[in-house]
C-alpha cells in the first residue's frame, strides 16, 4: 500500500484557488467572454447569458468583511470554533470564507481583510485539510 505524504495539508477548494510560486494563494473566479460577468467559484457556464466561453480570472487578494460569526457547532471534521465570514472583493464578487488570525471581538464590519491559507479541519481518515481563508489586513490589538 503506497502512502502519500503531504508537505502541506491538501487544499479543498479545487480550481477556485491557485498556489503561486512565492507560496501565496490566489482565488480564481471566471469571467464570461460575452457579458463580462465575474463569478466565484469558477463555472463552465455563465449564469447571466449562458455563454460557455468562461476564462479563469485571478481575483484581488484583499477585500472587505461584509459579515462574520463564530461557529461553535459544525459537522464532523471542522475544527471548531471557527469564524465564518463573507468577504466582498473589488471585482464585485462575494466569497464565503473562514476568518483566521483574529478573535471575533477583534473583527468589525467592513474591515479590510487579506487572503491567506489555513488548516481548517481533518478528513475522515484523520488527515488535516486546508483551504483559502482571510485574515485582518492590519495587525489586530488584543484589547480591541
Amino acid at each position, binding site marked *: 500500500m503506497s502512502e502519500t505524504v503531504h508537505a502541506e495539508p491538501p487544499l479543498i477548494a479545487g480550481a477556485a484557488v491557485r498556489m503561486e510560486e512565492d507560496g501565496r494563494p490566489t482565488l480564481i473566479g471566471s469571467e464570461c467572454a460575452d457579458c463580462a460577468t465575474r463569478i466565484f467559484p469558477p463555472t463552465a457556464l455563465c449564469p447571466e447569458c449562458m455563454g460557455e466561453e468562461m476564462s479563469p480570472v485571478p481575483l484581488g487578494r484583499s477585500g472587505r468583511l*461584509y*459579515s462574520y460569526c463564530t*461557529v461553535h457547532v459544525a*459537522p464532523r471534521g471542522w475544527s471548531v470554533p471557527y469564524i465564518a465570514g463573507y468577504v466582498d472583493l473589488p471585482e*464585485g464578487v462575494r466569497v*464565503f470564507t473562514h476568518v483566521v488570525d483574529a478573535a*471575533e471581538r477583534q473583527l468589525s464590519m467592513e474591515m479590510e481583510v487579506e487572503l491567506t491559507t489555513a488548516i481548517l479541519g481533518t478528513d475522515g481518515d484523520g488527515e488535516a485539510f486546508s483551504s483559502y481563508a482571510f485574515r485582518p489586513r492590519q495587525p489586530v490589538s488584543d484589547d480591541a
Partner: protein
Amino acid sequence: MRDVSVIGAGMVRFGKQPDKTLAEIAWPAVKQAIDDAGVSKPEIEAAWCGTALGGMMSGQRILKAVGLTGLPIVNVENACSSSSSAFREAWIAVAGGLYDVALVIGVEKLTRFGGGTLPLEREDFEVAHGMTMPALYGMRAKRYMHDYGLTPEQLAMVAVKAHDHGALNEDAQYRNRITVDEVMAARPIADPFTLLHCCPSGDGAAALVIAADSVAGRYSGKPVRVLASELASGKYMTGFRDMTTPEITVRGAKKAYEMAGVGPEDVDVAEVHDAFTIAELLYYEALGFCERGDAAGLLEDGETSLGGRIPVNPSGGLLSKGHPIGATGAAQMVEIVRQLRGECGGRQVEGARVGLTHCTGGGISGFDHGACSIHIFRN
C-alpha cells in the same frame, strides 16, 4: 381558476420519535385530517407529500398505512418549503379543475440523522467550506445588529415570545417558558445564537384535505378559503447582496398580497419561518408588518404576541413548536386553519379572519433561500 378551501386539518405533536418509522409518525396526522374533513377515502382523488429527507416514496409508504392507494401520489422536495410546495401543487390541481378533493401531507424524521445541524448538500461550494444554517443566519443577525442597532437582548426576546406561545400548544415540541437570561446563557451554537435561538431538531407530520368550493359543502369540515398560494425560488446573484432583507420573501409577499386582494394591514394572524430568532424579525419587515429596521420595536411593544395587533407564530413557531423540515409548511397551515375556525383555546387570536403562512428555506450559495412559499387564508 376555481376557489379552493381547506376542509380538513390534522397534525401530530412534534418531537423526537426515533423508534417510529416515517409512516408511523405520519399516519395519525393523515387520519385526523380525513376525519376532520368528513370525506370518505375514495373521494380523495390525489395526494401530494412534502418531505425533504424522508427518502423515496414517502407518500406511498404513509398512505399504505391508511389504505389510501391506487390514486396519483406525488412526492415533493423543496427543503423547508417541501409541504407548502406540495400544498401549492394540490391547490393548482383542484383550482384548475382536475380534481375536486385532494390530500396534502408534510412529514419528516430528523432523528434518523442523530443530532447537530441540519445535513446540507455537500456538492454546494459554501457547504463544502463549512457553511451551516446557523452560520448563515448568524451572519444575517450580526449584519442586522450592525446596521440597525438590534441588541442581543431584543434578539433573545424572539425566543421568549415563541416559548410563551408554544406553552399553550399541545402539539409543540417544547412547552416550557424561558427568560431572556436563560436564552443568553444557553450553549453557544453560532454567534450571536445560543441553542435557544435555534429551532430544535425533531420528527413530525401534518396533513390537510382541500376541496373545490363547489363541493366543499358536502363535507362536515368547516371550510377555510385559500386566498393566495404563492411559490418563488431565490434569485441567484453572483455579486453582493443585502443580507438584512430576504429578497425572496419580499418578492413573494408582494405577489401573495396581490393574489389575495389583501395587504399586510389585513392580516390578523401569521405563521412565519422563525428557524432562528433573527429570521422572525427579518420577516416582520419583509411581510410588511413594519418598516425596515422597526422589527425589534414591533416585538418589544407586544404587537406580535398574543393579544397584540398582529400575533406572529401563536403555535410557538419553529423555535418552540419545532421544525421537522418537510412537515413545517403543512403544520403552519394547520395552525392557521384552526385559528380561523376559532379552535385554538388559550392561544386563540380573537376574531381572526385573515391568516398568513410563510415557509422558506434551503441553504444554497448565491441565494437568500432556495424556495419560499406564502399562503393567505380567510374564514
